[in-house]
C-alpha cells in the first residue's frame, strides 16, 4: 500500500480495503448488535421482574413468541438469553471491540500505511457481516433461534429434535459462528504479521504502545484458540447431521431410544472451554490495552511499569490456556484435577494484580484530566477489581461448587468481562472519535453517559451476587414458581429497573455518537496532546495514513511530563535531545 489514491463510493465505504474504514464498519456493526443484544436483555429482565405478565417491550417480538395472555413463552425466554450471550460475547465484545480497535490502531500506531493485506482485512469484515446476517436471520425462523445457552452444550445442540431451539435456529447459529471464526482468523493473521513486519523505522517492540501489545497478544490467542472451537463445532455438526456419537450416549426422546452410544457431553465442554476461557481474554485484553493508553495520556504521566505490563499481558495469555477446567468443577471432575485448575486459575491473580497496581500507580499524583474516556478507563479498572475479586471465589473449586450456576456467576462474569470490556470500548470510542471522524464528541453528554452507565451497571450486577449466595439459579424462566425465592422478588425487580434505566442511558451515547459525526466541534490534529503516531496523521482521512514519508520513531510512547521538556507531552517522532536518556 502506498499513498492516497482515488476511491469511489463502493471502494471507500463498502468494499473498502482501508483499515480505518474497516474499523468503522466493525464498530457500526458491533454497535447495531449491541443494541439488539441490549434490547433482548431488557425484554428478559422484564419477564424476570413480572413473570408471565405482558409488557409494551414485547411488541418488539413476533406474536408467536408470546402466549395467549401476552406473556413471553418460556422457550423464547431461553432463546433471548442464548442470543444475548452469543451477541455480546462474540459480536460486540470480540468483533466490535477487537475488530474496531485492532483495525483502527495497529497501522496508525506502528506507523504503517495499512494492514499487511488489505484484501484479507476486507474479507475478515465481510465474513463477520455475513455471519451477522445469518445469526439475525435465525430470529425469524418458525422454531425460533438457538436456545440452549450461548455455550451450546449438547445434547440440546446436538439433537435437532430436542427442543424447538435445537432445530433450524441451532443450524443457523453453527453456520454463523463458523463464518465468524473464519473472519476472526483472517483478521488475527493479518494483525500479527502487520505488527511483526510493518513497524516504521525506529518503532522497536520496546517502543510499541501497550494498545498494540495487547492487540498482538489478543490476535495470537485468537489464532490458537478459535481452531479448537472449529473442531468442537465440527464434531457437533457430525453428531447433529450425520448420526455420530461424539457427545451423545444413552438418550431417549419421547420414548424413542436413540442409537447413540459412547459419547460424552463433557468432551464438548472440554473443547468448548479450551476456546471459551482464552475468549475471556480475547475480549478483555484489547480493553486493557486501550485503558493503558487512555490512563497514561489523561494522567499526563508515563505508564507505570511498561515492561511489567507487557509481561503481565503475556502471562495472562499463557495462563488462559490452562485454566479451562474451572468452568467444569461440577462435571464430576477428579478432585485432584480440580485443585490443579484452581491453582492455575488463582495464578492469574498475579499478573492481573500487576496490571491493576500499575494503573493505580500511573494515576497516583498524576495531573488527571477527567475526560469521558478517562472516566470509562478508570471504570474498567474498577470493574476489573470488583469482578476479579469474585473470580477468586469462583476459581476455587471448593467455593465454586456452592454458587455454581447461580446468579453469583452471572454477576461475576458480567462485571469482570462484560463491564470491563464495554467500558474499555467506550473509553476507546471517546478517545479516538476525533481521529475517526475529525470531530469531538460532546463532553457533557459523555459524563451523563458514564455516570448513568456506571450506576445502572452496578445496580444490575452487584445485587446478583446476593441472589446467587441465596441460591437463585440462573437461566430460570421464572423465579416465582419456588416459594423459597419469593423473598428475592424485590431484588429482581430492582435489577430490572436498573437494566431498563441503563438501556435508556445508552440512547444518550448513541445520540452523542451520531450527532457528533456530523455536527460535533471540529477536532484539532492532536486534541488530547498524545505522543503516539496516529495523532501525527492529517485530520482528514486518507488511504495510506501519511501524505508523505512514513514517520520515524525516536522514542517510546509514554514521555509525558518529562523533566526538562517544553511541554507535558513529546511525540514519538521527536528526536532525543542531546544528553536526554530514553525513559
Amino acid at each position, binding site marked *: 500500500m502506498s499513498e492516497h489514491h482515488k476511491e469511489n463510493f463502493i471502494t471507500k465505504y463498502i468494499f473498502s480495503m482501508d483499515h480505518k474504514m474497516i474499523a468503522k464498519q466493525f464498530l457500526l456493526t458491533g454497535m447495531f448488535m449491541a443494541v439488539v443484544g441490549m434490547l433482548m436483555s431488557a425484554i428478559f429482565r422484564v419477564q424476570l421482574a413480572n413473570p408471565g405478565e405482558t409488557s409494551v417491550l414485547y411488541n418488539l417480538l413476533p406474536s408467536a413468541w408470546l402466549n395467549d395472555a401476552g406473556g413471553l413463552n418460556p422457550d423464547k425466554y431461553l432463546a433471548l438469553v442464548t442470543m444475548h450471550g452469543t451477541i455480546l460475547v462474540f459480536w460486540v465484545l470480540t468483533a466490535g471491540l477487537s475488530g474496531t480497535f485492532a483495525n483502527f490502531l495497529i497501522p496508525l500506531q506502528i506507523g504503517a500505511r495499512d494492514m499487511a493485506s488489505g484484501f484479507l482485512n476486507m474479507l475478515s469484515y465481510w465474513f463477520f457481516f455475513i455471519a451477522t446476517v445469518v445469526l439475525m436471520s435465525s430470529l425469524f425462523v418458525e422454531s425460533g433461534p438457538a436456545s440452549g445457552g450461548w455455550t451450546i452444550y449438547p445434547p440440546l445442540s446436538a439433537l435437532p429434535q430436542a427442543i424447538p431451539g435445537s432445530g433450524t435456529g441451532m443450524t443457523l447459529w453453527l453456520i454463523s459462528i463458523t463464518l465468524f471464526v473464519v473472519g476472526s482468523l483472517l483478521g488475527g493473521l493479518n494483525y500479527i504479521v502487520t505488527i511483526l513486519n510493518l513497524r516504521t523505522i525506529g518503532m522497536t517492540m520496546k517502543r510499541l504502545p501497550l494498545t498494540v501489545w495487547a492487540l498482538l497478544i489478543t490476535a495470537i490467542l485468537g489464532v490458537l484458540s478459535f481452531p*479448537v472451537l472449529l473442531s468442537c463445532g465440527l464434531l457437533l455438526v457430525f453428531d447433529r447431521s450425520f448420526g455420530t456419537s*461424539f457427545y451423545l450416549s444413552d438418550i431417549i426422546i419421547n420414548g424413542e431410544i436413540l442409537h447413540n452410544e459412547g459419547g*460424552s457431553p463433557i468432551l464438548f465442554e472440554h473443547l468448548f472451554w479450551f476456546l471459551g476461557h482464552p475468549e475471556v481474554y480475547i475480549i478483555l485484553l484489547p480493553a486493557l490495552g486501550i485503558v493503558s493508553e487512555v490512563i497514561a495520556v489523561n494522567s499526563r504521566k508515563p505508564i507505570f511499569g511498561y515492561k511489567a505490563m507487557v509481561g503481565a499481558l503475556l502471562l495472562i495469555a499463557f495462563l488462559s490456556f490452562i485454566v479451562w477446567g474451572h468452568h467444569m468443577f461440577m462435571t464430576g471432575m477428579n478432585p485432584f484435577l480440580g485443585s490443579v485448575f484452581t491453582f492455575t486459575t488463582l495464578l492469574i491473580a498475579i499478573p492481573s494484580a500487576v496490571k491493576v497496581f500499575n494503573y493505580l500507580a500511573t494515576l497516583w499524583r498524576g495531573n488527571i484530566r477527567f475526560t469521558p474516556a478517562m472516566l470509562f478507563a478508570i471504570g474498567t479498572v474498577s470493574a476489573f477489581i470488583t469482578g476479579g475479586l469474585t473470580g477468586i471465589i469462583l476459581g476455587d473449586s471448593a467455593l465454586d461448587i456452592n454458587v455454581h450456576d447461580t446468579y453469583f456467576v452471572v454477576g461475576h462474569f458480567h462485571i469482570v468481562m462484560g463491564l470491563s470490556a464495554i467500558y474499555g470500548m467506550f473509553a476507546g470510542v471517546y478517545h479516538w472519535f476525533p481521529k475517526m471522524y475529525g470531530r469531538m464528541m460532546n463532553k457533557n453528554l459523555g459524563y451523563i453517559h458514564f455516570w448513568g452507565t456506571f450506576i445502572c451497571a452496578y445496580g444490575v450486577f452487584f445485587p446478583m451476587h446476593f441472589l446467587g449466595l441465596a441460591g437463585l439459579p440462573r437461566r430460570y424462566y421464572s423465579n416465582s414458581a419456588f416459594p423459597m425465592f419469593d423473598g428475592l422478588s424485590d431484588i429482581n425487580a430492582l435489577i430490572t429497573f436498573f437494566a431498563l434505566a441503563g438501556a435508556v442511558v445508552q440512547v444518550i451515547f448513541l445520540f452523542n455518537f451520531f450527532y457528533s459525526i456530523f455536527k460535533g466541534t471540529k477536532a484539532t490534529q492532536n486534541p488530547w496532546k498524545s505522543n503516539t503516531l496516529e495523532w501525527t496523521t492529517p485530520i482528514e482521512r486518507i488511504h495510506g495514513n501519511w501524505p508523505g514519508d512514513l514517520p520515524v520513531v525516536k522514542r517510546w510512547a509514554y514521555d509525558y511530563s518529562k523533566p526538562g521538556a517544553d511541554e507535558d507531552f513529546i511525540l514519538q517522532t521527536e528526536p532525543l535531545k542531546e544528553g536526554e536518556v530514553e525513559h
Partner: protein
Amino acid sequence: MDIALRNIVKKQLLWISLAAISMFFASMLSAFIVEKADVGNWKEFILPNYFVLSTGVIILSSLVLFFIKPQLKKEKSIFGLVFTVLILGILFSYFQIKGWQQLTNQGIYLTGVGSNISGSFLYILTLTHLLHLVGGIVGLCISTIKSKQNLYSINNYLGLELTAIYWHFLTVLWVVLFAFLKFY
C-alpha cells in the same frame, strides 16, 4: 511494501495459519485421548494396510520436493519434479479412500447404528487431513502449470515455496496422525 517484505509477510501468514491448523488437530487428538479413556465400549481397530502405503507415498512426495531448489539453482526445468509430487499427492488421496473402503469391510463405520466412536474419530481425523490436503493439491496443480511454463526461477518461486512448506506440513501431520492412531 517491497517484494522482499511482501514475501516475508506471505510466509509468516502461512506459518501462523499452520499453527492454527495444528491447534485444530491437537484438539481432535486430545478429544480422542479423553474419549478413549472414558468410553466403556471403545472398539479397537486395525489400521488399514492402505494407510501404510499412503504414509510411504506422502513421505516420498515430500522428499521429491527437496530436489526442486537445487534444480532451480542449476536453471533446469522442475516440471517433472512438481508433476511427480502432484501425482503422489493424488495417489495418497486414492490410498486414503481405499483405506476407508477397507475399514468399512472390517465393519468400522463413520456413523450409523453399527458405528463406534473410535471409528468415527478415525474417519474424522483422516477426512479432515484429506480436506487440508485438497488445498495442497490445488497449490500443486497451479505450481505444475507454472513450472511447465517456466515461470519459476531461483529468484522467483514464492508460490511454489509456500506450496512446498504447506505440503511438508501435511506430511508431518499425517505421520503424526498415523503414528498416533497406530500406537496409542
